[in-house]
């Protein structure tokens, strides 16, 4: 259970996130929706502690995440893997090594420094790649892959961390419709088969409705909606997206259909 209470983040007087209170049970697939700049990204980054909250607490199974530092913090980051809009892979390094980055916390520091990966670590990384259907690309440089392939590599990196949670920050925003479906399907598979909690920032309402079993709507740094997808009415959508609402829903509907 991930419990977030009174979580806020302010930048010189302006709130990027304000007084967020949510509880996310293990094994759920949560979509965080809202306009860009609504604070979705800040929320996910705070959970991974890439951004430090200015107030409030994050708690996971009784562990207070907000006060962690050093090795404790790194341990937490291993347990809550992150996937980014821009993939954040190391472009000049091969795919397998990129995936092995997710194992850094599981091996002695000297082995990591000398890049001596154990056979088991490499097997785990290959297994992850194999499940994503890109094991044949393992020896290629990451920056020679297409966006969709890179994002699948990033998912593998998250997966080999053996995390409890995967945070996905707009994972499909840079992808075409076909790869969008591929990546979302994989996230769903991970969630269903391995029982890993997935918290996913999405711009598109239709995708959120299709994949998530719960939606959190954010506007101006606040949580304005927190319910099952069926509870999201036209009115709430309009509140979330303002004038964009009709456009967002229609456009993305068309997108999913063609996909």
């Amino acid at each position, binding site marked *: 259970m991930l419990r977030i209470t009174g979580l806020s983040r302010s930048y010189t007087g302006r709130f990027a996130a304000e007084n967020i209170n949510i509880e996310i049970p293990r094994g759920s697939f949560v979509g965080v929706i809202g306009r860009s700049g609504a604070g979705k990204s800040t929320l996910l980054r705070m959970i991974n502690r890439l951004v430090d909250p200015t107030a409030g607490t994050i708690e996971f199974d009784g562990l207070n995440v907000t006060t962690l530092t050093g090795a404790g913090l790194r341990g937490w980051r291993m347990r809550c893997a992150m996937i980014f809009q821009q993939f954040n892979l190391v472009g000049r*390094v091969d795919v397998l090594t990129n995936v092995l980055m997710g194992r850094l916390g599981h091996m002695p520091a000297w082995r990591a420094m000398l890049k001596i990966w154990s056979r088991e670590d490499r097997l785990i990384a290959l297994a992850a790649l194999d499940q994503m259907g890109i094991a044949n690309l393992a020896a290629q440089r990451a920056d020679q892959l297409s966006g969709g392939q890179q994002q699948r590599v990033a998912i593998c990196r998250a997966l080999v961390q053996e995390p409890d949670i995967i945070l996905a920050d707009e994972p499909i925003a840079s992808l075409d419709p076909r790869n969008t479906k591929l990546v979302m399907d994989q996230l769903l598979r991970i969630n269903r088969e391995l029982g890993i909690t997935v918290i996913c920032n999405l711009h598109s309402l239709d995708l959120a409705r299709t994949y998530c079993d719960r939606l959190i709507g954010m506007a101006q740094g606040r949580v304005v909606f927190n319910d099952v997808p069926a509870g999201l009415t036209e009115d709430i959508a309009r509140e979330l997206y303002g004038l964009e609402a009709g456009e967002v829903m229609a456009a993305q509907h068309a997108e999913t259909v063609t996909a």
Partner: protein
Amino acid sequence: MLEAGMLEATYASAVSARRMRSIQGAAVLIIAIGLACWAAEVRPLTLISKIGNFTSYIDRMFQLESGARVWTDPAEWFWGLWKWLGLLRDTLLMAYVGTLAGAFIGFLFCFAASSNLMKSKWVCQGFKRLLEFNRTVPELVFALLFVYAFGLGPVPGVIAIAIHTIGAMGKLFAEVVENIDMKPVEGIAASGGTWVQQIRFAVLPQVQTNFISYTLLRFEVNVRAAAVIGFVGAGGIGDELLTSIRRFYYSDVSAIIVMLILTVMVIDYCTEKLRHRLLGGEVHA
């Protein structure tokens, strides 16, 4: 007609404004030259009266004791070939050891001096200032001090070169690091990597070609530096050259300078080839 007149007037005033600025610039330049000539005790008359010395000096450099031209008897010209080759080898080794040690320490320091990786502003600025100090003090000044502390010989020379190299390399390296893409760093941080692991796996792959290329360039510079650091007694061929110049062993001077020029050219050529291969490999890989 009226319009043409106005245009002409605008053009003329624009031109005269520019001319005015040029005249002001020229005036400043002339005053600066005058001041500089006065400060540097420039004596054109001395130069003219003594320019004969220069040509005769060059002439003497290519004459053997016997009065014959040096190239008529290469064995006599390069009578000290083996001694000089030994000194040249030492000079190259000094440059090599100094470059490697300096580049390694500069490499260790540069991450702490990069504002995007070092979150503590104080530490970052502290390292930046330290590198700047090392870079700004010329190696010959360090060499003078170290010769006093360590005694005559190549050791103070190497240390002087290394310390100057730490500053020069550290600053360049830090500039490269500050221009990297931070997304991979974030990616590794988010999966629980330590600061060192972030550098090892997200920063290094982005900067290593540049680092090696800069180090090779620095080696070229340091070969030149090591050749003259012997002037203050800090080892290498410089000491021998200084003695030859001071004692007017003309043909030795030219022999050593020819060897130095050849060495520098060979080193420049090799490092350039290496750097091209390195950068070329980067493009193809």
